[in-house]
């Protein structure tokens, strides 16, 4: 199995430069893979897939009689991120999350940024994620978005851009941890040779952060993870995180508000809950505040939250800041609150509610990616160069009817990575979702994150619902010292 015939086809490749030479840090990996006996890599790929199936790291596929479960496709060749690059990403993400948090706090309290006309008020107040009941809320420490997963892409120019902020319930971190575990099992030697920053302490850091949200009077806070239930597509992650943190995983039916406090039903009666890491949308949390028809919610929860009896991570209402229309203003938001220039740029964005932008978008539909601001997961999207004239006309009609709900961006030549296809490597487009824990004392950026791969040849859509897969992401250590994780692994004799 060799990289010999691999062609970057003019795209920015994460592993090879434009001359076809390995990028710094990637040469060791290539050497080792090239040295593997014929078909050994495929064998390990199969073994990794079987391990995923046995571990039950699967998601449900609905509508089929046999209740098929599928593994989230996993490619065995890791993506490598240089220490220098990562250092910039880390600073950029910390800056961005700080500004966005200030923005959310401002929007629900003083609304200075709206009064100063930096972001149009009607745009913010009409955003899908704006929650009126959150006005006046003061979450502990002024922190709203404790857990964020920001989607980054790298363009043909080799620069990283922020594609999307996910400030509500970003998922995928469990795949980062499981992918790493699999890679250590599959490639102990390569892993040992490269010096990779560890990701395994994410659950401890998450728990520390969550416990820090409890009222100061509470000695040992009761933290729980709240899942919509086993039929949720991210259920594996909910249960994985609560298992790794050693805290209960609850469903709505396990919780009840009594005497103003949130309690869980145990075999020994009711027990108070101090902190809830909720993996359920705002709308379904409390039928008395949000959607009245929610069957999953806990009546009275928001009242207990407003009274400071329980902490929620993330706070409700954070969706206002990851609205795709608000996204277009994030560079201004960073300048407004921090008086700094953005370290990682936005992808250039045309806002269809601006006259000039709209005109440009309508004239260039065949070149742009058009996105509905309220949709996610790769739905409601037009990828101009891959679309038919009829599809473009359809979107033109929609944009004219509802300019507020559309943005457009140039079609990026997303960077690519080599992926194992049958018996050879082919380039596939990727993005990167690092995870950020924003705590009162410090901000932690998980070194790495989820590299999502568009497994379909030529496709730019990496979402798992649209045929995407994932890869392990190796952020290398600066000095090139031995990997702390591989040292740990030796001790454990794995």
């Amino acid at each position, binding site marked *: 199995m060799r990289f010999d015939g691999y062609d970057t086809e003019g795209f920015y490749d994460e592993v090879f430069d434009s001359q076809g030479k390995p990028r710094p840090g990637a040469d060791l990996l290539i050497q080792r893979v090239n040295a593997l006996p014929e078909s050994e890599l495929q064998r390990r790929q199969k073994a990794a897939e079987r391990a995923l199936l046995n571990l039950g790291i699967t998601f449900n596929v609905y509508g089929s009689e046999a209740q098929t479960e599928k593994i989230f496709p996993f490619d065995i060749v890791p993506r490598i991120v240089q220490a220098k690059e990562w250092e910039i990403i880390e600073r950029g993400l910390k800056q961005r999350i700080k500004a966005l948090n200030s923005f959310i706090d401002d929007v629900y309290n003083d609304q200075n940024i709206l009064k100063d006309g930096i972001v149009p008020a009607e745009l913010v107040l009409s955003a899908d994620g704006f929650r009126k009941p959150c006005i006046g809320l003061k979450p502990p420490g002024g922190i709203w978005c404790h857990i964020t997963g920001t989607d980054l892409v790298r363009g043909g120019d080799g620069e990283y851009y922020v594609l999307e902020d996910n400030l509500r319930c970003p998922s995928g971190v469990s795949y980062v941890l499981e992918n790493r575990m699999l890679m250590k099992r599959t490639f102990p030697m390569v892993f040992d040779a490269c010096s990779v920053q560890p990701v395994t302490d994410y659950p401890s850091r998450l728990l520390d952060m969550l416990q820090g949200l409890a009222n100061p009077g509470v000695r040992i806070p009761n933290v729980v*993870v709240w899942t919509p239930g086993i039929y949720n597509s991210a259920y594996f992650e909910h249960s994985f995180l609560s298992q790794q943190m050693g805290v209960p995983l609850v*469903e709505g039916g396990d919780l009840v508000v009594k005497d103003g406090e949130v309690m869980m039903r145990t*075999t020994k009666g009711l027990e108070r809950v101090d902190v809830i890491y909720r993996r359920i949308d705002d709308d379904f949390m409390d039928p008395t505040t949000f959607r009245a028809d929610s069957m999953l919610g806990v009546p009275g929860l928001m009242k207990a939250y407003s009274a400071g009896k329980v902490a929620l991570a993330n706070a409700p209402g954070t969706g206002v800041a990851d609205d795709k229309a608000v996204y277009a203003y994030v560079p201004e938001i960073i300048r407004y609150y921090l008086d700094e220039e953005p370290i990682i740029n936005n992808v250039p964005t045309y806002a269809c509610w601006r006259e000039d932008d709209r005109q440009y978008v309508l004239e260039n539909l065949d070149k742009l990616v058009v996105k509905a601001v309220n949709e996610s997961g790769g739905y409601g999207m037009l990828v101009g160069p891959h679309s038919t004239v009829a599809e473009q006309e359809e979107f033109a009609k929609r944009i004219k009817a509802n300019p507020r709900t559309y943005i457009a961006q140039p079609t990026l030549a997303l960077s690519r990575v080599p992926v194992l296809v049958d018996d050879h490597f082919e380039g596939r487009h990727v993005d990167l979702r690092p995870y950020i824990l924003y705590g009162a004392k410090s901000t932690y950026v998980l070194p790495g994150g989820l590299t999502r791969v568009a497994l379909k040849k030529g496709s730019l859509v990496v979402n798992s619902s649209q045929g995407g897969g994932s890869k392990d992401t190796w952020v290398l250590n600066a000095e090139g010292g031995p990997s702390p994780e591989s040292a740990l692994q030796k001790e454990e004799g794995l």
Partner: protein
Amino acid sequence: MLSRVANSIYWLNRYIERAENVARFIDANYDMTLDIPDSASDQWQPLINTTGDHELFAKLYGEANRENAIEFLVFDRDNPNSIHSCVRAARENARSVREYISSEMWEQLNTFYLMINTAAKEESMDLPHQFFVDIMTASHAFIGITDSTMNHGEGWHFGRMGRMLERADKTSRLLDVKYFILLPSVDYIGSPYDNILWGALLRSASAFEMYRKRHGRIDPKKIVDFLLLDANFPRAVHYCIVTAMISMNNITGSPRGTFANKAEQSLGRLLSEFNFASLEDIFEHGLHEYLDSTQTRINALGAAVQTEFFSPQDIDSTTESRTLE
């Protein structure tokens, strides 16, 4: 612990135990029918009766033979107590408490499920014995992994209590159905078949070797004594109830001989019944009547466990209790 979690752990253990028992019943029966060709076909209906699902079977298949009995008991998705259905239900329960049980338990159970799922898709079963042994081994492995990887705290005790109640129920059913079929076969008394038939009953409870060590010769009454009243054999009803009681006391924190709720009270009563039972009394009372009443009480106990521990709306209600003075 969360009531919902306790409920799932309790049931996932019951389902695994049920699957194991069904596998053993079939395996022992299969083995026996190979020794007694003439009466072979007669032996499958009683097996169905042992599981208590004879009405559903009659509706789906009519008369029992080897093929349809195995299909019904092993693979049939319409039979909620088939091995396939049980393992699937156990896995669903485990999935909902995956964060509570150990990863090793989950992985074992998931692999178990995938094995049955693969077998269900195959056309023929060439080596039924190996298949059933695999099922029993998978169940034993699960119990062993549970014991050595999970805290022996409240959740573990709920699981063991579920397993013990399920096992007590299955052993008493087995005895109830088989004893009365075997007894009238006087033709066989003293013949090699006699030993084969009674031996099969013991094998159905994985009790043959241990019985031999304890009582030696095959004797119907001693078999009843062993399967019902032995306090050391892990599949005997008495042993199951003793063990369930220990777990129950651990869950409620009640000292021995006291109770904190209705479930603990009825388990305690059942235990003292078995503690002081004698074979003579049982046969005087009528073995069938005795087994029947035992099963009714185990069922009622299961219902009481459900309301006392798992039904959230009943948690606040204070239940009657009594402690030692």
